[in-house]
């Protein structure tokens, strides 16, 4: 045993966390970037100067896009804005994901916030808004809000108790979770087309199993990947309104919730997961698909990049990789076009100058947002309308099409709710996938956690 004074423990813990975070691509929804920045497609828009006699302004911007080409693209957009507005200075602080979260939390505890900073919306945004750290930009962005995908915009705002919606930030990346699959392994198992219904999905799992192929990879240690599968079942069975009601009321003891769990039990019975799934990390899961050791994973738009990164050959399965939307469940109330998704955005701090919001408008122009989509692989799936065609990857085009058709978009459950609630949902659902819980117990556990909020 080692003797560490208690006071160092938290520090050591953070170091360990950073160390473990460094070794994994984990939950960061930003696709792995490559080295080539893409050429500009359309000419730069003329930037209007806001006031005739401008006073000097500094914008503090914290972001977590540490990889290239994203980092350079962000810097380039800021430089272009500053060049057109000599009175504005943009101070960029690039932070690693975990370091960013810690630094932002301690800064906000001391009562200040950066003018612009990385955000994922949801429960953390709620806590920041409750603490008065965010600026309501609803009116400021109103003139151009409809140039951005509506579902994506809605994630970076909150509805208050009287039902009024407040915009606190804007998205620059928005994707949708679906099923990534290995076409070659599907063919080998005699499956001609991706399943459209959950019954077909289960039948295909059996076929893959019979052909000696691991049908599905999940990650018991990181918990959240299987939670997304469960969320989709809940969404397909209960529908978007029912799901939204469960989140807002905190009552998860519903028929839809237990029915979703019943389907997981059915899936478990086929023994579809990779060996060691209970202690697998998300990187282990991605490696299983990237090495063609498992046929499918339920994952977001960043999956191809992570699979390639984690694969032994550093390339993944290339052209064998395909994507299909999560199948529908017979008799379910949800539409096939309902989705679970999320991405990245920029939130606006309480004391941000008007120039910061003007910069967000500039950042969200088709000209600038296209740069994010056009890089290879894409830095983001920009939600700015008119940038879709810049995405070259066929699978990402499918994700974009799914996002475009979405009739309902639920932010990842573990981000939509408070962090404690997110942990409770992850822990409850992973127990079900590991055969250590029952559908009713899952719903009861989440309800109990909601009551403790």
């Amino acid at each position, binding site marked *: 045993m080692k003797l560490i004074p208690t*006071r160092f423990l938290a520090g050591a813990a953070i170091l360990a966390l950073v160390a473990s975070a460094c070794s994994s691509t984990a939950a960061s929804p930003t696709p792995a970037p490559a080295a080539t920045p893409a050429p500009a497609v359309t000419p730069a828009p003329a930037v209007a100067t806001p006031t005739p006699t401008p006073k000097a302004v500094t914008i503090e911007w914290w972001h977590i896009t540490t990889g290239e080409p994203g980092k350079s693209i962000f810097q380039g957009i800021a430089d272009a804005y500053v060049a057109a507005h000599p009175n504005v200075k943009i101070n960029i602080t690039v932070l690693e994901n975990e370091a960013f979260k810690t630094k932002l939390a301690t800064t906000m505890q001391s009562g200040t916030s950066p003018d612009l900073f990385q955000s994922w919306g949801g429960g953390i945004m709620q806590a920041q808004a409750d603490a008065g750290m965010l600026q309501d930009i609803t009116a400021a962005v109103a003139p151009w809000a409809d140039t951005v995908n509506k579902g994506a915009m809605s994630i970076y705002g909150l509805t208050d108790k009287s039902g009024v919606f407040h915009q606190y930030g804007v998205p620059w990346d928005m994707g949708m979770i679906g099923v990534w699959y290995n076409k070659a392994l599907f063919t080998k198992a005699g499956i001609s087309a991706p399943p459209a219904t959950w019954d077909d999905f289960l039948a295909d799992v059996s076929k893959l199993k019979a052909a000696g192929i691991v049908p599905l990879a999940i990650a018991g240690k990181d918990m959240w990947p299987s939670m997304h599968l469960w969320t989709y079942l809940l969404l397909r069975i209960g529908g978007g309104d029912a799901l939204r009601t469960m989140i807002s009321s905190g009552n998860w003891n519903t028929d839809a919730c237990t029915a979703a769990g019943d389907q997981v039990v059915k899936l478990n019975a086929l023994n579809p997961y990779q060996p060691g799934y209970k202690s697998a990390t998300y990187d282990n899961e991605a490696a299983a698909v990237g090495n063609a050791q498992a046929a499918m994973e339920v994952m977001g738009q960043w999956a191809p990049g992570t699979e390639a990164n984690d694969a032994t050959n550093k390339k993944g399965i290339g052209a064998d990789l395909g994507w299909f939307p999560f199948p529908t469940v017979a008799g379910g109330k949800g539409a096939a076009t309902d989705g679970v998704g999320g991405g990245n955005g920029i939130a606006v701090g309480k004391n941000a100058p008007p120039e910061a919001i003007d910069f967000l408008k500039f950042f969200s122009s088709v000209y600038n947002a296209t740069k994010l989509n056009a890089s290879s692989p894409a830095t983001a799936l920009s939600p700015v309308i008119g940038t879709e065609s810049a995405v070259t990857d066929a699978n990402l085009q499918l994700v974009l099409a799914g996002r475009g058709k979405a009739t309902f978009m639920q932010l990842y459950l573990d981000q939509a709710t408070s962090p404690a609630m997110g942990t409770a949902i992850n822990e409850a659902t992973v127990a079900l996938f590991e055969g250590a819980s029952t559908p009713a117990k899952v719903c009861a556990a989440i309800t109990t956690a909601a009551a403790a909020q």
Partner: protein
Amino acid sequence: MSATSATGARPRVGFRVPTKWVTISLFLLPALALYLLFVLVPVIQAAHYSLYKWNGLQPLDNFVGLRNYATALGSDTFRTAVSNNFLIIVLSLTLQIPFSLSLAVLLNRRFRGRTVFRVIFFLPYVLSEAITGVVFSLLLRPGALIDSGFSSLGLGGLIQDWLGDPGFVMITLFVIISWKYFGFHMILLLAGLQGIPREIEEAALIDGAGRWQAFRHITLPLLGPTLRVSVFLSMIGALQLFDMIWVMTKGGPLGASNTMAIAMFKAGFTNQQMGYGSALAVILFLFALVLALAYQRFVLQRDVEGAVTAFNG
């Protein structure tokens, strides 16, 4: 000393005492300031926060009294964490330390290659806990080195889901913790053994004592102080267990390998329940404090005469 003689001595005393105290406090001040700022103040702050429901961002105004403590003591997760800490303490004392002791006795003999063995056994202690965790996570993956090792020895039937089985994960972790720390205790005990004059044991042997008798009645009692320190370090280390488990399992599967420190970290930093996390920190602090004071008072007293517990010398 009477008042009159004190008055009589005033010029000298009045001159000497302040100088002495000024010097002492000047030397103490930097250390004291740092200790107050980074140890005592945070401990008091944590105790204060633990009485609130607080997410770290909002103002500290939701006073809940001892409710966080009640929640902790009533939570299955936290009770598992506490029992895991004590499981590691018990296993360390009953298995790891005796093992280290027997190795120390063995390596205290003169034989060829003794230093090489000492270095090899001590090596794991040099690795950081995070690195050890990452390495063993890789070795313990299904079908990886450890599994294939078992298979090639014809022991394939003994293969477990080492880190994925809630019923087995603590055993796996204990073996790895022991692997990392047995060398440290071995070196400690070896140093203790070398402080025992050989003549005493030789005298006993000449007087007709058997080897076991000599070990039991001569070596072991003389090794007492070292052994007691070794046990103490082992217990405190087991209470603070965090890094390696966090890297290997994050307290999983299904909470089966949570420890108090992991529960505290999860509550505070993952779940942003700073109030509840502080309550867990205070509970961990109390466990460590009570254990340390009791051990010093009842076990280490003769070794550390005059320190912490014995105020009257």
